[in-house]
């Protein structure tokens, strides 16, 4: 048991890689065996993170289950892992969504082995970002996550996948160039990449030895701040850096979209919370208005963009822009007034919104995938009146859509309310404008339901070879945990929000 306590994080982090290695040695024609191995082995990190969740002590401040291994001694970088209430929720989300995504991809029949291995590598990449307490390790995992995703879109995607995967890869890599530079600058300046130390050293640094003399420390900090912000803003994605997302989401395979929306976007927001706010409190406060502007633009234009779609998956993709805008709005509010109760409420909302969006967006993408697999079209105008054919699917779709819409009683409302509540006294105008986005959230969600389920039945899907079949048991099993969590968090959010709240109060 002691072993488990001291090595829990590395077990969670590397067990997907181990699973991928096992799959590597499986014969490539045994599809069933590969799928089940992937599924069962992806449950291992989930079980471990449940252990982590229950052993985690929310009353303690600071990081827990810390581990530190030598990695690159010469430049002062070490494999330093640790969790607090902030990363814990994200780890839980990641390890929960990965098995579901793998279960969702049981219909993949080409190159299954490579697919499953890439998925497991992806999981390690994402977990690494959430667990890293070392800036360089953070960056390494940040980039590692891109590669499997690129191949997932590029190899298993739909028609326009080359364009989409390239755009995704180049955009996110290009965005993080500044992050790499700024990371190196910090590492060189302080001889360490350890975040726990940088949190103390960097914000209070008054002079740096190795910068050109014509630059003041505040200029340097401002440049580095924007380098960080742009890297994370591309990933979130914030307006106007969001155009890669609809393409990537639309072309990615179903499970890829689930993970992309469910977890990958959270990496950006997590970067804001873990790095930008603690490392650049002054700059964040100074530029909070700009961040809030971008967030509000993401909320409003995301909603409008979503409303303007005829492609069901693209509609859901734009909804991610809309929802993640609220996360950044909360972060901007916290940046503007850190330490106040309003900021804490806004951050509670932002972090819960990350978790909630992970659940509802993954669910929505999966549901789009379910209907796409049966009809081979995503065009909303090709559907219509499908509710009588697929009542169970329809019910699940309405439920998940309502969670996405932010219906009170389901999870999205709690987090959006908290964000709006926290941001209102700090960023009143922006919050008021963002309500326009909230209004159109309703519009696009209802548009989706209207075009797919309601209205006169499109007879094409009612008979013969095109007859639409009901959602099957495997697919219901994928949705069930998501729906249960959506409802539970909506009705009783305190169990998760308490952990978040304590971390937020301690951190910000």
């Amino acid at each position: 048991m002691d072993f488990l306590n001291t090595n829990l994080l590395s077990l969670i982090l590397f067990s997907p890689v181990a699973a991928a290695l096992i799959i590597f040695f499986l014969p490539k024609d045994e599809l069933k065996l590969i799928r089940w191995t992937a599924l069962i082995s992806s449950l291992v990190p989930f079980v471990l993170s449940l252990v982590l969740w229950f052993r985690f002590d929310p009353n303690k401040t600071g990081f827990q289950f810390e581990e530190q291994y030598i990695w690159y001694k010469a430049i002062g970088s070490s494999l330093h892992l640790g969790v607090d209430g902030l990363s814990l929720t994200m780890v839980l989300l990641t390890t929960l969504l990965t098995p579901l995504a793998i279960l969702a991809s049981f219909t993949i029949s080409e190159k299954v082995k490579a697919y499953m291995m890439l998925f497991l590598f992806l999981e390690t990449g994402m977990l690494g970002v959430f667990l890293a307490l070392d800036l360089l390790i953070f960056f390494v995992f940040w980039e590692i996550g891109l590669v499997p995703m690129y191949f997932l879109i590029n190899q298993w995607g739909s028609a326009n996948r080359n364009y989409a995967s390239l755009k995704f890869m180049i955009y996110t890599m290009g965005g993080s160039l500044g992050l790499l530079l700024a990371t190196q600058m910090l590492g060189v300046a302080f001889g360490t990449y350890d975040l726990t130390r940088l949190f103390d050293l960097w914000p209070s640094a008054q002079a740096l030895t190795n910068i050109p003399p014509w630059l003041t420390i505040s200029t340097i900090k401002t440049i580095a701040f924007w380098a960080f912000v742009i890297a994370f803003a591309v990933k979130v994605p914030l307006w106007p850096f969001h155009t890669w997302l609809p393409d990537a989401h639309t072309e990615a395979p179903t499970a890829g979209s689930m993970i992309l929306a469910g977890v990958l976007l959270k990496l950006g927001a997590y970067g804001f919370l873990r790095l930008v706010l603690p490392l650049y409190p002054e700059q964040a406060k100074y530029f909070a208005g700009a961040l809030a502007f971008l967030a509000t633009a993401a909320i409003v234009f995301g909603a409008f963009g979503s409303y303007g779609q005829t492609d069901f998956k693209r509609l859901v993709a734009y909804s991610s822009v809309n929802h993640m805008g609220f996360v950044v709005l909360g972060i901007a509010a916290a940046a503007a007034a850190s330490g106040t109760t309003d900021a804490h409420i806004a951050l509670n909302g932002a972090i819960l919104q990350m978790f909630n969006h992970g659940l509802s967006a993954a669910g929505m993408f999966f549901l789009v995938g379910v209907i796409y697999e049966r009809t081979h079209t995503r065009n909303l105008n090709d559907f219509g009146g499908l509710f009588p054919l697929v009542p169970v699917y329809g019910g699940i779709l309405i439920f998940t859509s309502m969670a996405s819409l932010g219906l009170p009683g389901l999870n999205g409302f709690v987090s959006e309310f908290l964000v709006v509540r926290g941001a209102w006294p700090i960023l009143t105008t922006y919050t008021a404008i963002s309500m326009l986005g909230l209004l159109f959230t309703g519009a696009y969600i209802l548009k989706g339901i209207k075009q797919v389920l309601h209205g006169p039945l499109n007879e094409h899907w009612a008979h013969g070879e095109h007859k639409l079949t009901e959602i099957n048991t495997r697919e219901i099993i994928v949705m069930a945990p998501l729906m249960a969590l959506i409802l539970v968090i909506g009705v009783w959010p305190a169990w998760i929000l308490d952990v978040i709240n304590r971390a937020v109060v301690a951190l910000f």
Partner: protein
Amino acid sequence: MATETLIWLIPLPPVLAFFLIVLFANKNKALSHTLGVGAAGLSWLASMVVFVRALSVEHLGEHPFHASVNWLPTGETWFKIGVLIDPLGAATLFFVAWTIFMIFLYSVGYHNFGQPKGDHDRPGLPPHGATVTDAHGHKHTIPSVEPMYSRFFAFLGLFAFGMYTLVVSDNLLTLFVGWEIMGLCSYLLIGFWYGKPSARNAAIKAFMTTRVGDVFMLLGIVFLYSVTGTLSFREIFTNEELMHALGTTATPVLGLSAAGLIGLLLFIGTVGKSAQWPLHVWLPDAMEGPTPVSAMIHAATMVSAGVYAVIRMFPLLSLDPATMSIVAFIGAFTALFAATIAVAQNDIKRVLAYSTISQLGYMIAALGIGAYVAAAFHLITHAFFKALLFLGSGSVIHGMEHGVLHTGNHHVDPQDMFNMGGLRKKMPITFWTFLIGGFALAGFPVVTAGFWSKDEILADAFAHGHLAVFITLAVAAFLTAFYTMRQITLTFLGEPRTEEAKHAQETPWTMTVPLIVLSVFAVTYGWVGIPEHFPLLGGLVPNWFHEFVGSTLAEHPEAVPFSPVPLLTSLGVALGGLLLGWLVYRNVKSPAEDKLQLPVLKNKWYFDEAYDFLFVKPAYWIAETLVYKWMDKGVLDGILHFIAHITGVIGAAIRNYIDLRVINETIGDGTANTVKWMGFNLRPVQTGRIQQYMLASFVVLIVVGAVLYYFLVMA
């Protein structure tokens, strides 16, 4: 059981029924309605117990039933949610429980439980009837059971949950939760027959229009929470210092105080939910839903909820006279405006829909002039008689559908009043209960509940000098009486105008019993609020309602002194309107003979068209063209593709002009070429003749030796 525990439990049975029906009972119609009606019955029972206990508590206003739990952690503190039953809550709970229970019961009959499955019915469309063969071999078409019977009860259960949650909430947030859940249910129920494009669009219209109000309301809630740190009604209203601060803090918007702005934002939510002008457009379209839904939405729950919320927030609103003026204006304007439209409608349910908007305007106007108790009183009496009217109209439609199935002529609209006439003989129970409801709506003096509540509003308006409001409401009341009598005359009086009306039939007991129960309340509920100074009747029964509900407020409102002007006015407009309605319409046979079918009224003052032009079309344009096509695809992706293109051009330039020219040709190939050229030219030296080589080396040796000798020895 402790009363507080009981209050917690009130909303639960319907939501449990919802989940049970959805998950387990959706194939079994009998089980579904047993669960649904049973749950409504349980909630009704619990509500009655709570209501009776509330009556027995002295000074319930100061010591309401209240309990709360921690819900959301917010920094160092917790946001609490809880239940609260004060006099207003108790009175609301009473009518909500009764109407909901009746509507559940009525739905069993309305959806033809026990009838065979339809011949061509499919989910998403109203049932079309089934063909049966009787003992003599004759074929009959009879009503068929609703294909989505179970689903209806599930939605209804969720709806009831929302309303009960709203009523028992002790804070604005859970009130808003219930409010929005009802919004969802109204969407689902209006779009219940989703196969009809009209129903589908009506559902979306209802949801979106109310959502416009909701986002403002959310802002109001957030604003209130930010300045007070709590959303609990009691914590805010009993804190005098806080209330004073709210009333005096200025905001940059319209010169309102903080309280005024919050009140206004919350009020916009009500404007959406209670279908006040200018957000009234959704409510008439909501008639696409099955009739019990209309009753749920229009009487018992959703629209009442809007007014209830404003009554709840009255102490806050009343802090700012500017907000109160806005409220009064919107209410009074809506009351008159909707009444004018109602005069020209031919659909039996649409008339009621506009009358609902108009009556809600009454309540809002009453609140705007500070008549707190009168508004609450009218809310409750209206809920009873309007639920009665809607269920009655459903009964009429049901009877007419019977006639339509009998004749087989499906082109006859069973909701058009001009296809009816003379139904009093065919459907006596429906007729008498409808008459009671209609007279209550018209404010028929003394016996009906509507008279007392309406009279109180008019008296309040007159006594407090709001003459403009008084006159507007009086005119609206006249129109109300007029179109009510028009409706009754066209539907029930005279002779049947169509074959279908001749074959209409009285509806089953599950539908008539709720009508009878509600008509009892539509008459008697007025007697609990007779003003004490009313001539002859005043003082016979104590003005219980005023005392009880008035005690909700910290300062008990004074009962207004008696004045003959409003009394005579309300007598005059009610009786005059009714009489005129009967005189004008007793001989009208077809819409063409109806002089009041003015296009502007028929088309609802063209609000739908205007909104479509002003908001809906631009929204589409902004979404599809501006944001997606121009901004995202055009500008943003354009910039990206431009950068990609530029990168490509630079790459090509580097390859063509530097790599190929400089590196390859000059440096790489150039070196090789030079070496080659030199080798070629030096080739003749390589004769292969050793003797020549040796001679050359000998010469070199001599020369080198000579040079060395010169430099080393000679120098």
